[in-house]
């Protein structure tokens, strides 16, 4: 396509005055509506009608023009099979040649950058459908099987035709192979039938697994009734459950079971089991597998009983497999955290890639019209609610647009800023106040616990519950306060309100957790105690249990009681709504507690699993009985990305930092736990490496790597530098893509103008051709 030649051919037409584009556009539309029936029936590929036609009226298009218009690629795309096949032939050809992006040198510096050479394949424009099919099959065969499957999946043909294409491709392959080898060996035939049988059984197994998927049916129910947004909460819960299961299984097999099978000899549990232990975690549970203090610091082997001979003992030792428990402890936890980190970052980046697009600027209204209908919703009532929602959202958007077009006065804007400032000051003040209260309370409780040692033990244990109680009640009540503060910000768009509420809630939870970490790692260790790790583990156990109790209470009071009250007293039909953001933040808080506690209480992951399963069923029952579908707009994938990011960054990172601090700097207690005699927990790794080096000189390279890579700070700096360079590179690529998108948009607009121009010229030229013989005929 050469611009200069096109310009030359239209040169004589350019001399004439143009019609205004607006007029022509209207006439095209009108003509469409008048003649649609005629055009449709004729079809895009039929031959043009014979004979001259009189184009009497100025604003009606000749059938010739209409014929050409109806054969335009933009109209035939997706309609006729031939068009689809040729389009996908072009695509597979491009895929094969890998000409996906034009090089920057080839883009001329004009106001209309033309990158047409990329799209134009003038090779095959034959009319024969069979010919096109043959070419498409040939192209498909060249692709690898994965690419072929993906390309076939993308084509909008019916399944039968796709299957035919697929079979054709395979046939040709087989035929080619036959030609090469000459005959099929019986062995390869057996091999093929084996592979086919294996693949068949593998697909059966996969579909069976798919049905077995956890909570498949309840999730379907929830999605059908409440829509994608509430469903995202439950899917998030399932993700957390999977993380906890992974952590738990690792802990169970490598730490808990070996210790349970070979219990340490000198521990005698002299406390009785009372019911309070389930809540406080202390008492009977202190000296069990639950906590850090129980684990021995030596290699586990078969324990010799006290009465046996020493010689017999020595003989037994040679048969058993030594299991180094401290090493197993630190390695299991380290590896589990590392894999969790990688899984989190991977899911975060995948979710990010799904939900954000380069240069997704305006276009909210169009997106809302086309994408907000949730096809999963089935029930009639919910559909009515959904259409009401969409109606409300559209009205809100229209009101928003009108507001934007009429800017606010200065006084109003100033007032809004003042109110915003006031609201944020209030929120920050409340956060600081709560944190300070937690601090004072924690100091007070600790003194109380350690001073009055002669008091009633039951009361003393119960007093330990006071701190978790206080923290959980803060976490429960303050979000309601923040939600109520939305009254102050009535003028803002609902999305900003939502983000503000999430931000304040998150700030509160993280500050309180930070204060608690400080309390545990700094203050508790200062106290004279036998085993501070066990105490911290018990505290975390208490927090987890208390969090669970409060979630149940919140569900009961927030949803059940509210519904009963609103139905009997207020007599309104509005059921309470399921507040997704608040519930997800509670889940993230619970998960952070579990991650913090795993080092001190290895079975905490199992407790978290039980807690999550129970929460799922409780929330689901409450949802079905008490709540209605959410009324506010909710961009599900956007919010899911946000929640996974929140899980990764403040939550997991905070837990990882605390655990790293504990491992690297804190001194383990002298009398309990697997790291009794060392200065830091990390030292156990170092000790092991040195022992390895001493025992076997062949392991020298291993310890050399350890000394120079792991302990050398230069490596970390280099790694950080490389990471920064990679990030910068990606940012530049995104910037370049934005520029190209802008240029392409300009080009599309220009092409539209070209199209209108050409249609007008076509119409004019046809009219000239038809009017001259017509005039001659009328004259004669």
């Amino acid at each position: 396509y050469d611009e200069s030649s096109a310009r030359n051919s239209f040169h004589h037409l350019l001399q004439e005055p143009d019609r205004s584009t607006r007029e022509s556009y209207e006439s095209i539309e009108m003509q469409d509506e008048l003649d649609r029936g005629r055009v449709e029936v004729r079809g895009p590929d039929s031959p043009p009608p014979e004979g001259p036609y009189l184009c009497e009226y100025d604003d009606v298009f000749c059938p010739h023009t209409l014929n050409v218009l109806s054969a335009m690629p933009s109209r035939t795309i997706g309609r006729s099979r031939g068009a689809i096949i040729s389009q996908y032939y072009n695509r597979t050809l491009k895929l094969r040649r890998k000409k996906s992006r034009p090089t920057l040198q080839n883009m001329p510096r004009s106001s209309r950058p033309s990158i047409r050479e990329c799209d134009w394949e003038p090779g095959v424009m034959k009319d024969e459908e069979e010919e096109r099919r043959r070419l498409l099959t040939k192209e498909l065969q060249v692709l690898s099987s994965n690419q072929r499957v993906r390309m076939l999946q993308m084509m909008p043909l019916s399944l039968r035709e796709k299957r035919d294409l697929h079979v054709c491709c395979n046939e040709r392959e087989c035929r080619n192979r036959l030609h090469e080898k000459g005959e099929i060996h019986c062995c390869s035939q057996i091999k093929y039938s084996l592979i086919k049988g294996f693949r068949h059984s593998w697909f059966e197994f996969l579909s069976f697994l798919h049905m077995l998927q956890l909570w498949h049916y309840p999730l379907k129910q929830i999605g059908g009734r409440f829509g994608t947004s509430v469903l995202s909460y439950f899917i998030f819960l399932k993700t957390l459950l999977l993380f906890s299961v992974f952590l738990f299984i690792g802990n169970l097999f490598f730490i808990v079971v070996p210790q349970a099978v070979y219990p340490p000899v000198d521990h005698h549990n002299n406390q009785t089991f009372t019911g309070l232990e389930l809540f406080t975690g202390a008492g009977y549970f202190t000296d069990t597998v639950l906590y850090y203090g129980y684990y021995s610091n030596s290699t586990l082997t078969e324990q010799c009983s006290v009465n046996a001979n020493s010689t017999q003992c020595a003989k037994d030792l040679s048969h058993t497999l030594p299991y180094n428990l401290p090493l197993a402890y630190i390695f299991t936890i380290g590896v589990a955290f590392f894999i969790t980190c990688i899984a989190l970052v991977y899911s975060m980046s995948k979710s990010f890639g799904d939900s954000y697009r380069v240069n997704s600027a305006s276009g909210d209204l169009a997106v809302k019209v086309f994408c907000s209908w949730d096809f999963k919703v089935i029930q009639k009532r919910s559909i009515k609610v959904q259409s009401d929602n969409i109606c409300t959202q559209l009205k809100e958007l229209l009101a928003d647009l009108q507001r934007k077009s009429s800017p606010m006065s200065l006084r109003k804007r100033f007032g809004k800023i003042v109110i915003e400032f006031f609201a944020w000051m209030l929120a920050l003040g409340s956060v600081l106040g709560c944190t300070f209260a937690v601090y004072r309370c924690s100091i007070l409780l600790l003194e109380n616990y350690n001073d009055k040692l002669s008091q009633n033990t039951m009361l003393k244990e119960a007093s330990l519950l006071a701190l978790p109680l206080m923290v959980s009640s803060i976490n429960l009540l303050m979000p309601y306060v923040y939600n109520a503060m939305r009254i102050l910000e009535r003028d803002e768009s609902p999305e900003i309100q939502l983000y503000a509420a999430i931000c304040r809630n998150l700030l509160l939870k993280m500050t309180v957790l930070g204060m608690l970490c400080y309390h545990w790692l700094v203050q508790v260790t200062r106290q004279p105690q036998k085993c501070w790790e066990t105490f911290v583990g018990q505290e975390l156990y208490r927090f987890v249990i208390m969090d669970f109790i409060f979630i149940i209470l919140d569900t009961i009071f927030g949803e059940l009681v509210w519904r009963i009250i609103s139905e009997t007293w207020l007599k309104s039909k509005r059921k309470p709504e399921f507040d997704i953001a608040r519930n997800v933040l509670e889940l993230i808080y619970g998960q952070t507690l579990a991650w913090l506690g795993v080092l001190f209480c290895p079975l905490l992951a199992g407790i978290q699993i039980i807690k999550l399963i129970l929460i799922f069923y409780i929330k689901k029952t409450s949802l079905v009985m008490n709540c209605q579908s959410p009324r506010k707009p909710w961009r599900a994938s956007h919010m899911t990305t946000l929640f996974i990011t929140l899980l990764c960054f403040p939550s997991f990172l905070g837990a990882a930092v605390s655990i790293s601090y504990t491992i690297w700097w804190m001194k383990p207690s002298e009398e309990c736990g697997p790291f009794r005699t060392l200065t830091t927990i990390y030292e156990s790794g170092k000790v092991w490496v040195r022992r390895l080096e001493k025992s076997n000189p062949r392991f020298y390279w291993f310890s050399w790597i350890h000394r120079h890579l792991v302990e050398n700070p230069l490596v970390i700096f280099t790694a950080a530098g490389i990471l920064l360079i990679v990030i910068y590179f990606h940012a530049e690529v995104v910037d370049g893509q934005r520029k190209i998108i802008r240029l392409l948009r300009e080009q599309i607009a220009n092409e539209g103008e070209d199209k209108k121009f050409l249609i007008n010229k076509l119409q004019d030229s046809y009219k000239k051709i038809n009017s001259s013989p017509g005039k001659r005929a009328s004259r004669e």
Partner: protein
Amino acid sequence: ICRLHGRYHELAPNIVPMDYTNEPDVKLPIQLIINMPELKENPFKQRIVEAFSEDSQGNLSFNDFVDMFSVLSETAPRELKAIYAFKIYDFNTDNYICKSDLEKTLTKLTREELTPEEVTLVCEKVIEEADLDGDGKLAFADFENMISRAPDFLRYTLVRY
């Protein structure tokens, strides 16, 4: 697929044969399909079925039925869903979503709760935002471009099988 065939058979046990080896030419009329529980309350059910039927009247043979569920499943690629979604919203089947198509879509979406002025305003705004080449209608390329910016497009799935 056997499950889908079971569902198809349930719709009209008299007409649909269990044995497909002779490839009988059986088509179910549109009234039966739109009474399926997944589609019954959907305001676009008519258009969905018409988009997948070969004769554009809404009669689905078993192959069309399977096509419909495969495109509306969760594993279908985005481009395929975009192509069929475009067909669904194109009420007058001229391969463009013009203003009248949009008005019909909006009416179905909101069940006539919007006033006519609001409908007109929304349609104009949508065309303004999404139309790239300035011809006042949405071609498939415009539609696909707009959809690609919307990550929630996955809502175009029926319940999984």
